[in-house]
């Protein structure tokens, strides 16, 4: 575990030694504000909850999280440091896990910094704080799912732009997999069981069910197994493609 920890610390601190962290956090907070107050009409609703705030997170993550994850492996390959990393005494899973956790904790920090919205809600009224807490957990889990996709895709290419675009597309599919837009693509030629599976993989479904404030073990299991599967694929891809 100490190797994972070493990688984790290096990765997390590297966010803050470059402007990336600050740019990301500022844009994340600014967009959150715009979505919540203007598009979500938070004041106009005159309800003390954070529904409009969380409603836009799936959309916000769609573009911001791949921007965070695109460098994870593509940059290592581009600069050749992957050769250094993979010839140190560590296993691929440790490197993949350490990098992923650092990115996830970083997105958690960005999410945590939205706390003034929560303070405002409490100042203006009496929101249901347990529901807000569960919603934060849901948002954090969803960020992890996006990141796992992005990390895996980043290992496929040395070009960060390509990593970004492909990650956005894949995240988009999982975001909307419960809607006719995606399901119609498969309707008619795939068996119903598979279509229901695809529909069950939707981020939106699981996220929205948690936003009601209910912790359903199925939603938690979904996000964790989703992350684990993508990281497993990530490990395999790094193993196969590290020296290309």
């Amino acid at each position, binding site marked *: 575990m100490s190797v994972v920890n070493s990688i984790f610390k290096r990765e997390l601190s590297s966010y803050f030694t470059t402007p990336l962290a600050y740019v990301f956090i500022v844009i994340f907070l600014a967009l959150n504000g715009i979505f919540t107050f203007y598009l979500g009409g938070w004041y106009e609703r005159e309800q003390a909850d954070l529904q409009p705030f969380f409603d836009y997170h799936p959309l916000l993550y769609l573009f911001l999280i791949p921007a965070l994850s695109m460098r994870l492996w593509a940059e290592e390959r581009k600069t050749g440091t992957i050769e*250094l990393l993979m010839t140190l*005494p560590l296993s691929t899973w440790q490197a993949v896990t350490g990098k992923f956790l650092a990115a996830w904790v970083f997105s958690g920090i960005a999410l945590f910094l939205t706390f003034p919205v929560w303070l405002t809600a409490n100042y203006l009224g009496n929101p249901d704080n347990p529901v807000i807490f569960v919603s934060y957990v849901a948002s954090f889990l969803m960020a992890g799912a996006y990141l796992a996709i992005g990390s895996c895709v980043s290992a496929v290419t040395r070009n960060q732009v390509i990593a970004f675009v492909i990650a956005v597309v894949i995240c988009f599919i999982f975001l909307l997999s419960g809607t006719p837009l995606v399901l119609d693509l498969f309707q008619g030629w795939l068996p119903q069981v598979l279509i229901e599976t695809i529909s069950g993989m939707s981020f939106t479904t699981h996220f929205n069910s948690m936003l009601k404030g209910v912790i359903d073990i199925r939603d938690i299991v979904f996000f964790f197994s989703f992350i684990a599967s993508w990281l497993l694929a990530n490990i395999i891809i790094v193993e196969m493609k590290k020296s290309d």
Partner: protein
Amino acid sequence: MVTDVKISVKALRKKFGAFTAVDDISFDVNKGEVLGFLGPNGAGKSTTMKMITGFMTPTAGKILVDGLDIDNYPIEVKTRIGYLPEGAPAYGDMTTSGFLEFIADIRGYRGREKSDRVNSAIDKANLGSVFHKPVETLSKGFKRRVGLAQAILHDPLILIMDEPTDGLDPNQKHEVRELINEMAKDKAILISTHILEEVDAICDRAAIIACGKILFDGTPQQLQAMSLTHNAVRMKFAGEVPKLAKERLCKIGDVSDVMLESEINSLMVIPQAGASIARQVTHLIRDECWDVEEFVVTTGQLDEVFRKITTQITQQ
């Protein structure tokens, strides 16, 4: 298994699609030995190193590092190796000290031992002046030394360096060679280079690689002995070259050829392969009372041998 053979490579092969980068290479490196890989670019030097360090998987063949098969013990093998990859990659956003601490961290050093390791690597690679500077702002020479410091940080049994002196100025090259010579006693070292003088300066053994094959494996002296001008005599006369000089010199039994040098009033006397002619030539000079200003026995030119060996195969 206690053995002095630290790296053992048997029938190693690597294919990229239809292209064979490394073609049936076998060699050993013992403790206390510095083996230099020589070869033109794209000869398979780096690919071989990448396979020994576990970065690439061979298509066929066997690699034993300190008696351990890299397939079965990848982590154990990697703890024993210090590796400087080609181009000395490092995390540019980290400072020199931060980067080396990270490497020490991964290699399992903690607390006091960690800072000792980092400091001694910084001393050896002479990096004190850039301790707190981000690696990406360093000059090429410093970057290379950061890579070197990273490779020797854990005092490895086996050191593998891909072009360790590439991009360094003559003084830095000298320092790095001194460092390698110092460490050579108790390590097995494998370096690649295309600087021929380096082979002479630091290697106990040289292997010439071209087109994925080892074409020569022996001491630098043996390599020089393959040169046409090995043990040849270059002489410069005080005045014009005497008329009969060429003829007389050719009559010495072991002389194969006598050539006019480009330098004025100079001759090059080439011996038969393996023969030594210096004595006979000096006797002749004395007997003929020639006025010779300069007299040099040449050791042979490595670049000539290198060209001879490597162009043969590339033309095939």
